[in-house]
């Protein structure tokens, strides 16, 4: 990559920082330069989020239809999978799958619910009602 070819496309990176890229100058010598972002990778990030959003919406519908508990919704909202939820809460994966059932969820102790609320960064009440301001992303 030549120095003048370092991409400077608007991207989510704008909210954060410019990033260092290594590129060659006219004499072929490598130098560090700064990039504002690259459309190609901004798109890769974008569709990854779209997919996450679709999964979260699916989960929300399932909860509203009574097919799943809010734990499933918050797991998707937080881009987690069973292994990550299990690692943070200390529950076995099959236990968490049980908690996905509305009937089991409704009987969970405050203490267990609080463990979920903590890793999902919501209050107990919001955990039960799925009351988050739309989708976080």
């Amino acid at each position, binding site marked *: 990559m030549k120095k003048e070819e370092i991409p400077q496309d608007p991207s989510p990176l704008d909210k954060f920082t410019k990033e260092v890229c290594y590129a060659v100058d006219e004499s072929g010598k490598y130098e560090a330069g700064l990039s504002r972002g690259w459309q190609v*990778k901004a798109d890769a*990030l974008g569709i990854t989020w779209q997919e996450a959003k679709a999964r979260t919406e699916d989960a929300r519908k399932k909860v509203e239809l009574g097919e799943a508990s809010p734990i499933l919704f918050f797991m998707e909202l937080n881009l987690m999978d069973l*292994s990550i939820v299990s690692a943070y809460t200390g529950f076995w994966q099959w236990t968490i799958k049980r908690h996905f059932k509305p009937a089991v969820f409704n009987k969970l102790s405050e203490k267990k619910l609080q463990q979920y609320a903590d890793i999902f960064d919501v209050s107990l009440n919001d955990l039960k009602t799925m009351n988050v301001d739309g989708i976080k992303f």
Partner: protein
Amino acid sequence: MELNFKHQQAAHCENGVTTNLLQHAGINQITEPLVFGIGAGIFYIHIPFMKINGGPAISFRTMPGQIFSRTCNALGVPVVRKKFSSKADAQKYLDNCLQAGQPAGCQVGVYYLTYFPKEFRFHFNAHNLVIYGKEDNIYKVSDPVMETVTTISAPDLERVRFAQGALAPKGQIYYPKSAVNITDEQIKKAIVKGIKHASWFMAETPVPILGVAGIRFTAGRIKQWREEVGERKGGLFLAQLVRMQEEIGTGGGGFRFVYAAFLQQAYNFIPNETLLEVSKQFTSIGDLWRTAAVQASGIYKGRLTSQQEFNVMSDMVMDIAAKERVAFKTLYNIKWKQ
């Protein structure tokens, strides 16, 4: 309290932390490309049957901690590295380091990292930063992917130091044990060691998912994706590949440009023309990775949909693998003693 620590931005987090900590320890000649090359950070693996975020498990970088360890080891710098089971102990140890005037490298997860914007917060646990001060329970942070220094509260830092899941950091902390003086002769030796290691790994390991063979494996898989999981999901898989290759922290082109820069700097220590030649090869290989990323983006944006387009992508990656094999073989075969 704030230690006198020079923050320098880098393309990749662990390179940056290693460079900044080593410079702090008195090794003024060290740069990010040198650290990346000496630490043999260039890498490739495609783990079959495993998924990361529902996509292929591909990595262009070594295991976290390796670049720091290998670089220090090759330069003969003694290292302190600690993991903790207790959060209180982890914080106490960090505070003691700061009291003793030692800035400390920490491995953290990015999901709960407060100063990262939401868009970049995934469950990725191999980020690295340096803590260089503390005031009123707020830590001062030198995060090498950022242009300037930042801060994080003590509870927030604890949370990211004890992020959970794959590659959980377990409060890991590391730094060079003492200030050192390194001669150019030692750097030369370390460069040779790093090149030998990386070129052996990339071109010679007899495992079909590692190094250049791993790139060929990915190329083969790309051809199947459309049939196996469909256009849309196949596109998502390609987006994941592009993110591993280009996302913040790679310097672009899957680290190939950083490696090319390393070979150029290596030449300043060891005037062997082959290094410059191979550096040029890696520049064009990096460009090829980026051209492949453009093709991939056509697919994941839904503009290119036919099997033919997946085949083109696959062929591009296959071509890259062939060129990398030549480049790494050339490095592997350099006769260092003349």
